[in-house]
């Protein structure tokens, strides 16, 4: 049988269902957000690994070439001359079908048995051989997963159009992938290698050669020319995955914020329940219940709350994870690598982590109120004013400990070098430290606001404001929760805005040309280039090529530029004199490094970087660091002439056209796109800039979603606090009603109170928000991505945040206000 003291506890909870429900909802949202983010991250990671595993198959190594790929002759040489069977040629590219991005793997079916076990579902006639026959014989023959085919509305035998390099080509679906791995192959199609070579303009070229080597690879490596290298397949996959690590860590940190705000909610709820039961606790203590028993019973309640909330959070998190998955995978696709993932995989480890976080959070949050309940003297438990006074007296000490935590955070930031985890820990310490200072700030501020309120709205207004300061044991935590949520909004908004302004400024400098021309994913042919630069209004042109060079240390993106005279000013050199740097860059074996690259690899001017060229490994001198928002921290800039000395790659990806004065960029764009037979896409400077900022904004959608969720938790906190406060204030409000206050005036009183809570929270959030912005910009962004952003503080963001806090509080206070207005004046007559 349940002991009576436990029943006393739980009957209290049962009688305060609203409070109970709101606490559960608050912590459940916190758990849901961390579970959802973790599930989305893990699912994207798992889908990528599964897809890579299936595509890589039995290959242990891969032979890769220079920027253009691997010469197909090398494959023939290895197979025919050296008699190596366990190799397979691969084209690995991307194209679009109905506007959707698909991966393409071009394979030689005869070489595949040694490497991959792609199987196809038998067709309606049950003849799998027919599919193989069609795959080899039909032009544009392709295989894809059933889900991909269904999503495109096609089936075996159907023809469809693929777009690559701005050109359309016809494909035919000859069959569907079969076997267990079919879900790993979503949004990927397999075609014959000759088809892929034709579609991507890779005659006599391969993306890579897959190799299966048992044991020592040195003998195989010795067969390769300087222009090719052998890499470990698993290592390549991991290196690709590692690119997104900082992105995923930042998402996880953001999800923890929602849980942190949930901590305040549980703390609020439990401490309020202790306050309300001071009489009961006093009686239980008088009857002989020990401090320890009181402590355990309060923690027991929190454990039950935590249990219910965590279970609810797991369910909600699984559902939310599906929604976040789309946003996460889109960002990963935009920024890092191609991943197709449609289903959240319910990872038991993630669920266990979420459950434990929910339980620990609840118990941690309840510890302080439980200690307080256990430490109360029986005679004091009957006096609420003494509790409030005690809380008031404790505020300076609490604030002082908050300042201590913030100083420790500053110390951690200074001493933690480049650790992202330490940087994020410091952010949370700053939040926690500041949170401890907020109640004192709120009390002092509310006291000052009282006389102002009286001057504006009379004694009733003063009553509303005074209620905030004098009930800090209940309202304080709500103020803290909202202040933390709003400060996070300020911090992230200032960071994103500063980032946006910096990117916009950078684009303004970097985009020097009037019109940009690309081959829509494929190199621009020499004849097309000639036709474009011969247009009458074109006075000069830059050319660029993005060449990827990969070796065992990772992938570098080599930006190969032939600068027009006006183009040099488009690159901001951060640590060298442009006058001397540019001539050396044009003539010497030298490179410029992007700011993120310099940070990540600790490279500075004068250092040398070894690059695998078509002539073998060569050392290049670093001349300067250039400003760049290179998300993969892999960018190097090299002059066309230097590049041509070391690489057999004459391809050009883009042209930057400089027009004569008064030329119409729009007319030039139209003229280029109208060139007969050209595979070109032209965009004006303005359009590129707008497009870039659109992509930028898209990237931060998930950030917004997570902060809205965190704010949602804070709103639940306000609602819960105000409702709890009403329970205590029934008699006071009943008296006011008896004295002649109308329902509307009572509702106005409560709304004023919640508005003041919102206003104080909003103001309190400003300093923390700005400090958070500074840390996010100067520490987190630097450590995660290596770039530096100038901080831009927009007063509009600050004003919006304060306004948002007030409106949010007013909305959360709406129901409590209506409820208070319904309090009957007769309640004041009842004996206490």
């Amino acid at each position, binding site marked *: 049988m349940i002991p009576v003291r436990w029943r006393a506890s739980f009957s209290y909870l049962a009688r305060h269902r609203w409070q109970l429900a709101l606490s559960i909802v608050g912590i459940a949202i916190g758990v849901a957000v961390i579970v959802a983010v973790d599930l989305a991250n893990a699912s994207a990671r798992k889908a990528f690994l599964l897809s890579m595993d299936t595509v890589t198959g039995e290959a242990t190594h891969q032979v890769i070439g220079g920027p253009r790929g691997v010469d197909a002759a090398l494959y023939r040489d290895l197979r025919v001359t050296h008699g190596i069977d366990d190799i397979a040629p691969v084209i690995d590219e991307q194209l679009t079908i109905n506007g959707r991005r698909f991966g393409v793997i071009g394979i030689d079916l005869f070489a595949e048995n040694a490497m991959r076990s792609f199987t196809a579902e038998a067709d309606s006639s049950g003849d799998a051989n027919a599919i193989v026959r069609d795959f080899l014989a039909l032009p544009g023959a392709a295989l894809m997963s059933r889900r991909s085919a269904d999503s495109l509305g096609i089936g075996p035998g159907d023809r469809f159009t693929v777009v690559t390099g701005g050109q359309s080509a016809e494909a035919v679906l000859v069959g569907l992938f079969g076997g267990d791995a079919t879900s790993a192959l979503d949004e990927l199609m397999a075609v014959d290698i000759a088809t892929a070579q034709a579609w991507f303009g890779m005659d006599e070229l391969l993306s890579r050669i897959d190799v299966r080597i048992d044991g020592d690879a040195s003998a195989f490596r010795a067969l390769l020319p300087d222009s090719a290298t052998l890499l470990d397949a698993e290592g390549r996959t991991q290196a690709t995955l590692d690119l997104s690590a900082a992105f995923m860590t930042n998402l996880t940190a953001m999800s923890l914020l929602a849980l942190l705000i949930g901590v305040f909610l549980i703390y609020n709820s439990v401490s309020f329940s202790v306050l309300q039961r001071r009489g009961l606790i006093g009686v239980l203590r008088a009857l002989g219940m020990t401090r320890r028993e009181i402590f355990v019973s309060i923690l027991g309640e929190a454990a039950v709350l935590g249990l219910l909330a965590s279970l609810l959070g797991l369910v909600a998190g699984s559902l939310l994870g599906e929604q976040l998955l789309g946003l996460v995978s889109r960002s990963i696709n935009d920024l890092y690598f191609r991943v197709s993932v449609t289903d959240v995989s319910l990872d038991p480890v993630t669920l266990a982590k979420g459950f434990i976080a929910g339980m620990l959070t609840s118990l941690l949050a309840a510890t302080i109120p439980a200690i307080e309940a256990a430490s109360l003297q029986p005679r004091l438990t009957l006096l609420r004013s003494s509790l409030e006074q005690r809380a008031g007296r404790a505020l300076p000490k609490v604030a002082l400990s908050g300042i201590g935590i913030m100083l420790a955070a500053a110390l951690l930031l200074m001493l933690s070098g480049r650790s992202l985890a330490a940087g994020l820990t410091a952010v949370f310490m700053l939040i926690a430290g500041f949170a401890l200072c907020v109640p004192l700030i709120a009390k002092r501020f509310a006291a000052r606001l009282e006389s102002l309120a009286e001057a504006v709205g009379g*004694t009733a207004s003063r009553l509303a404001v005074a209620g905030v300061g004098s009930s800090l044991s209940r309202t304080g935590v709500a103020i803290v929760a909202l202040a933390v949520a709003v400060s996070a909004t300020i911090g992230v908004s200032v960071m994103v805005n500063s980032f946006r302004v910096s990117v916009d400024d950078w684009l303004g400098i970097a985009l020097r040309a009037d019109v940009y021309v690309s081959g829509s994913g494929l190199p621009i042919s020499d004849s097309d280039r000639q036709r474009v630069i011969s247009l009458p209004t074109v006075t000069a042109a830059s050319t660029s090529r993005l060449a990827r060079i990969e070796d065992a240390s990772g992938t570098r993106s080599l930006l190969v530029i032939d600068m027009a005279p006006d183009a040099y000013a488009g690159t901001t050199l951060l640590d060298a004199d442009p006058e001397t740097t540019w001539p050396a860059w044009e003539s010497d074996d030298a490179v410029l490094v992007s700011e993120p690259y310099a940070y990540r690899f600790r490279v500075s001017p004068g250092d040398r970087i070894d690059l695998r060229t078509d002539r073998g490994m060569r050392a290049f001198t670093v001349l300067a660091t250039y400003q760049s928002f290179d998300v993969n921290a892999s960018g190097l800039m090299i002059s066309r002439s230097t590049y041509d000395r070391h690489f057999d790659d004459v391809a050009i990806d883009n042209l930057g056209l400089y027009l004569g004065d008064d030329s119409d960029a729009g007319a030039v764009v139209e003229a280029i796109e109208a060139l007969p037979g050209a595979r070109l896409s032209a965009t004006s400077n303005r359009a590129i800039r707008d497009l870039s900022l659109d992509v930028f904004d898209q990237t931060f959608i998930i950030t917004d979603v997570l902060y809205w969720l965190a704010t949602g938790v804070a709103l639940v906190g306000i609602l819960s606090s105000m409702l709890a406060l009403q329970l205590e204030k029934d008699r*006071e409000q009943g008296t006011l009603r008896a004295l002649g206050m109308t329902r509307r005036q009572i509702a106005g009183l409560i709304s004023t109170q919640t508005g003041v809570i919102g206003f104080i929270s909003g103001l309190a959030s400003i300093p923390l928000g700005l400090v958070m912005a500074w840390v996010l910009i100067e520490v987190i962004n630097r450590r995660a991505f290596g770039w530096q952003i100038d901080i831009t503080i927009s007063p509009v963001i600050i004003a919006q945040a304060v306004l948002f806090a007030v409106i949010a509080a007013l909305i959360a206070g709406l129901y409590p206000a209506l409820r208070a207005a319904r309090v*009957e*004046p007769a309640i004041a007559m009842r004996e206490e």
Partner: protein
Amino acid sequence: MTRMNQPEIVASGITRTYQEGSRRHTVLDNIDLQIQRGESVAVRGRSGSGKSTLLNLLGAIDSPDSGTLVTCGVELTDLDEHARTLFRREKLGFVYQAFNLIPTLTVADNIRLVLELNAIVRSDADARIEELLGAVGLEDRAASFPDILSGGEQQRVAIARALAHRPRILIADEPTGNLDDTAAENVLELLEQLVRAQGGTMVIATHSTRVAAACDRSIELHNGRLERVE
């Protein structure tokens, strides 16, 4: 006392019932009562006899299920909740056993609140607060908060608040119930003196024979019925 000849409260056949689970419980049963202007009446009876319910009805806090109730010439049963609130604000004052002062307002502001609700201008309100605090002997506690006052002092503030806007009727529910004998005596004297000085009517629910004796008349409730009128 010419004004005592005019009835201030006329209750005719008022009944109030409450639903308790499946059965209806009659708290006041067909009460007829007249209270003259300027009269002080003690309402007596055991706990649960219906005293507080009667006070709620007379104080326009609640409405009877049947019967009529005319207070200060106004038929209260015709008024909706909002109109009753405005009536209460202007015509009535309340003193409670538990004082019910607003803990977050100073003594002066507790009184000022009622004056503001009645749209008394600031300078007049200041003068009235000073006058009332002088009358209840708490002129030096104007800036104090209620929680540092003794029970007797708190009740004196409550009386000052109840009379601040010069109500026609003062409703007091066990005003001395939480006080020691000396404090109770002081409060009773104050009520007598101040209400009489304003020519007001006073209805006091009490168990105390001393309080009842100080009133012009006593009525006694027994199981919701008016048993005895002295």
